[in-house]
């Protein structure tokens, strides 16, 4: 194939769908589109053919910054021993209600 290097492909977009009002948007996959408007329409055709959604977000993949798995220990492990953030850490007598 010729001119492989200078061909301009449609960029990749990450697609987030709200499945119904009251729920958050959730990542469902990716697709290619020339611009944001087209990405939304493509997402509608690709990811909501079976009534899966009421709202769509699209983000061009290159604009997503992700945490690195190498840092995951320092990022997430420190939360492991902070048991005082959970209600079961606190002892109350059974007679106390509604708390």
């Amino acid at each position, binding site marked *: *194939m010729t001119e*492989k290097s200078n*061909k*301009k*492909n*449609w960029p*990749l977009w990450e697609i987030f769908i709200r499945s119904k009002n009251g729920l958050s948007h959730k990542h*469902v*996959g*990716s*697709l*290619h589109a*020339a*611009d944001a408007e*087209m990405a939304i329409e493509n997402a509608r055709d*690709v990811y909501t*053919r*079976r009534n899966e959604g009421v709202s769509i977000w699209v983000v061009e993949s290159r604009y997503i910054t*992700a945490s*690195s*798995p190498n840092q995951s220990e320092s990022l997430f492990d420190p939360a492991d021993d902070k048991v005082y953030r959970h209600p079961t850490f606190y002892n109350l007598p059974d007679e106390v209600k509604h708390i």
Partner: protein
Amino acid sequence: MDPKQKALLEQFQARIDAEEKIEPKDWMPDEYRKTLIRQISQHAHSEVVGMLPEGNWISRAPSLRRKVALLAKVQDEAGHGLYLYGAAETLGADREDLIDELHEGKAKYSSIFNYPTLSWADIGAIGWLVDGAAIMNQVMLTRTSYGPYARAMVRICKEESFHQRQGYEILLALCRGAEAQKQMAQDALNRWWWPSLMMFGPSDKDSKHTAQSMRWKIKRKTNDELRQQFVDVTVPQADFLGIEVPDPALKWNEESGHYDFGEINWDEFWQVVSGNGPCNRQRMEARVKAHQEGAWVREAAMAYAEKRSKRREREAKAAIQVA
């Protein structure tokens, strides 16, 4: 191997053994990445090439109900190809490059799609047998070790659930219809049975990728295990239709609790895989043509997007200056 690399490999295998999913940015052995890109892209190519034999009959579907069902099914295959290319792209592959590899004959796709669809019953047979075989494989893959691949498969399996029923219902109508229709169904089974068994790939003893893929839990069942499972569920379905599986050696084995079946013609399998099947050339020509004739469309859409985004930037700047 240097000790650091060895430690990483061991850690990786430990994660796999502990049933942890591997995600895109995690460390993974190059060979794992390469195997996945190869397998996922082959899978994606199969979905897309697979649109062609069935697409053949969209314009000739015998009722409007059948037409919309088939159209929706073939459309789903396009969607599945798309989800799978997306999964491959999380591994750093580029869809366009993968497609080029297909078109240049460097990448493979399922050999089943190199067989022709000659009658309406073939559409039934594809849904029943080909999708049936694919589902066996895909259900297993919903538990594959690579997260994005597993998630794509979950979505695909959910959507596939109507495909096999669609095919079986077509055959059911034929088998309950006139003699000519039943004949059509039998003829389709005769032609599609063996190629469907071949879909599970070479026998375990000849499959070069199986052992490593099992260790990495990319695959969780061997080709022969899946093939046996397929035969066991499909034969009673053929009996129900009242058509005969074209294998004189097919027999229920009380002792093993499985069907025994005849030897697959592996020579035919390897011929078709290496490009000599009845429709290999047409299928590739059709894909290449679609891609080449679409080039100006893709290019123009990109050019317009850039033009418009520049225009909007200019307008925004002008607005700031006015303010």
